[in-house]
């Protein structure tokens, strides 16, 4: 596919983006539509643990929670995926056997990406060989800010190749890109280089996902779809902790890309504490009462 000239910048008006987000946030989501949104959000979660202290025991607990988020309410959807470091992939894979929950793994020297390309590719291949269904890679932000767009493009293409059958999510780390125009450019670059998903953040840099950044990325996905008919997924990650925020994100997706993107195949939340807030709100909608967090398992 012929890709655009990445030295050209697509103008983005930050004031306009912020206003659009504010208007979308003024949507009032009540009753049935709220319950539906809460369950939908739950089904889109990449339940995540990415700590230096992660151990098989911790990952096993996380997987169990993913399979059975809240036993008090049957018929709840499970989360979409569990997201772990490559070393933990086999543990998660075993624990999630027989479910349709995917195992996602961060790779490519996450979170900085500051390793030689061959090591990042090995990292990716290892995660895939351990059974990862999805790979979350990071782009070389240093090279991007330095204007080496072809290098970044080629790296993403190489990782895509290393992924084989596994789905590739490309983390732009928008907190380090600083402008919405850079976010747009990195999105275009990633999609043209073969990303199946574009993702805002590692969760290790502040700010992580924001709504204006997400809107700009969704608009990039929309333009890519207009041009190529290919649907690319979107994953905001980091900083989304409350059900209210999650619903606001769903509104943004619904009114930017429409129904086709409102499922876990095309939209994910990268989050850890969001799950319990969603559960708490679902219980509130069903019973009319808020329960203490003590009634929800931490992992």
């Amino acid at each position, binding site marked *: 596919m012929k890709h655009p000239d990445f030295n050209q910048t697509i*103008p983005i008006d930050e004031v306009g983006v912020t206003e659009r987000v504010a208007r979308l946030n003024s*949507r009032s989501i*009540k009753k049935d*539509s709220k319950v539906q949104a809460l369950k*939908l959000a739950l089904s889109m979660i990449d339940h995540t643990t990415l700590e230096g202290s992660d151990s098989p025991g911790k990952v096993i607990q996380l997987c169990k929670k993913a399979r059975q988020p809240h036993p008090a309410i049957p018929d709840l959807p499970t989360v979409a995926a569990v997201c772990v470091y490559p070393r933990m992939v086999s543990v998660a894979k075993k624990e999630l056997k027989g479910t349709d929950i995917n195992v996602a793994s961060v790779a490519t020297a996450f979170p900085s990406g500051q390793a030689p390309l061959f090591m990042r590719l090995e990292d990716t291949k290892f995660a895939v060989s351990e059974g990862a269904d999805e790979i979350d890679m990071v782009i070389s932000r240093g090279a991007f800010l330095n204007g080496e767009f072809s290098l970044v493009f080629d790296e993403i293409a190489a990782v895509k190749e290393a992924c084989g059958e596994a789905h590739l999510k490309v983390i732009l780390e928008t907190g380090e890109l600083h402008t919405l125009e850079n976010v747009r450019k990195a999105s275009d670059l990633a999609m043209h280089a073969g990303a199946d998903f574009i993702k805002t953040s590692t969760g290790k840099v502040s700010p992580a996902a924001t709504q204006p950044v997400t809107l700009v990325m969704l608009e990039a996905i929309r333009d890519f779809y207009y041009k190529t008919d290919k649907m690319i997924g979107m994953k905001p990650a980091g900083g989304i902790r409350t059900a209210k925020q999650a619903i606001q994100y769903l509104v943004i997706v619904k009114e930017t890309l429409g*129904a086709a993107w409102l499922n876990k195949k095309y939209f994910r939340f990268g989050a850890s504490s969001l799950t319990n807030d969603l559960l708490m709100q679902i219980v509130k909608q069903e019973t009319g009462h808020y329960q203490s967090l003590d009634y929800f398992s931490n992992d």
Partner: protein
Amino acid sequence: MSNTETKEATYKPTSPNSKLDFESVWEYAPAPQDSDFAEVKDRYELFIGGKFVKPSKGRYFKSTNPATEEEITEFAEATQKDIDKAVKAARKAYEGEWSRISAKERGKYIYRIARMLQERAREFAVLESMDGGKPIRESRDVDIPLVAAYFFYYAGWADKLEYAFPGKKPEPYGVCGQIIPWNFPLLMLAWKIAPALATGNTVVLKPAETTSLTALKFAELVKDCGLPDGVINIVTGAGQTGAEIVNHQDIDKIAFTGSTNVGKIIQKSLAGTDKKYTLELGGKGALVIFEDAPIDQAVEGIINAIYFNQGHVCCAGSRLLVQEGVADKVIQKLKDRLGTLIVGDPLDKNTDVGAINSKEQFETVNKYLELGVEEGADIYQAKCSIPENGYFIRPTLFTNVSQSNRVVQEEIFGPILTVQTFRTADEGIDKANNTPYGLANGVWTDKGSKIFKVGSKMRSGVVWANTYNKFDPTSPFGGYKESGVGREGGMHGLAAYIRN
């Protein structure tokens, strides 16, 4: 000509029509604004000399909710005798207490009105939506906050007029006759009353016959705030009542907002008299989108320009002029964006486009829809559902139109956008200016210098850059050519109420 204008478009959409699906698995449940707390009486009288009084001929007219076609209440019809009474009350107040109190005290009254409006903001927002059909999202977030802002702004000027007009002793005209339209009922009242009071005038104000409710509620508020009797008088009625005000011998100044046709009649009536006047009339604003504009934000700007308040905005951007290289892209995005507009119950918090203000206007807009098709335009309407009852019109685009079409030339005052293209900046400016109106235009480009180059050549009172329909009390507003005479808002708005 800059490079960006000659640059070949790198992008052509593969599908000319909308292909995103916005009707989906997940729909928003109704989110009605509670309206029970907002009290509406069965009948409203005239507000003259600080009292609610019956009309001399005892006639009343009904007011309906355009979203349901149900009657809400009825208003008194003011005739010559009533107008005379109102003008006498205003004259008495002007020559009496209102001239004697200090400017500082005058300011305090206006501040008090502003605060009381803020306290009762939700009530006014609900009534405005019920009576006029505008979405609660707008009356709550735009109309009423701006109403309070205008009163606050002009309250501040009351005791500082000598700083606004250095070297002269600013004096009020006396009694002002003010006639306002139905598109922003309470906001237009604020634009008229706040500067008139700040400068020491008294007023006789007539709201539009289809939207008098909030003006009468405002009269109740005026009574509660203890403003001296007769400083503000509110008389209801239709065109004939307005004519009585315009032609009354003891009125010093006329301020009118409304259609250009009525504006011309008023100007004729006032010719040869000593009355001063300001007229804020119609418009046919152009939205000029250059190739180098931030396209997604420009599309949002277009939505705000034409579908805000059902297009019942004198400064609405009703003519889209888009540079040829990006025309297909903009039109496709616009069509997809129309797919997400929610049209319906004005009191639902998620409604984007409410009801057309009245049966009469509904018929007018429908007439233009037919006319556009007859003239050969391609029509595209949002696919949204609309309620069975009430006056609703789907947001509409007319493409394949030209400068010679009536739908491009005439003010429709409804949710209808015409789309034309241009090749160079000069052509864009020519097309934007090629209209008898000149109220507002918009420019979208990423290039700051182009904004100034193009903006300075546009013959309109307002030019918005990369945005549209933004209002602020500090900013003057008014038209060129057939869009009016004089300015409202800011210090210019003060000048319209003091003797030269």
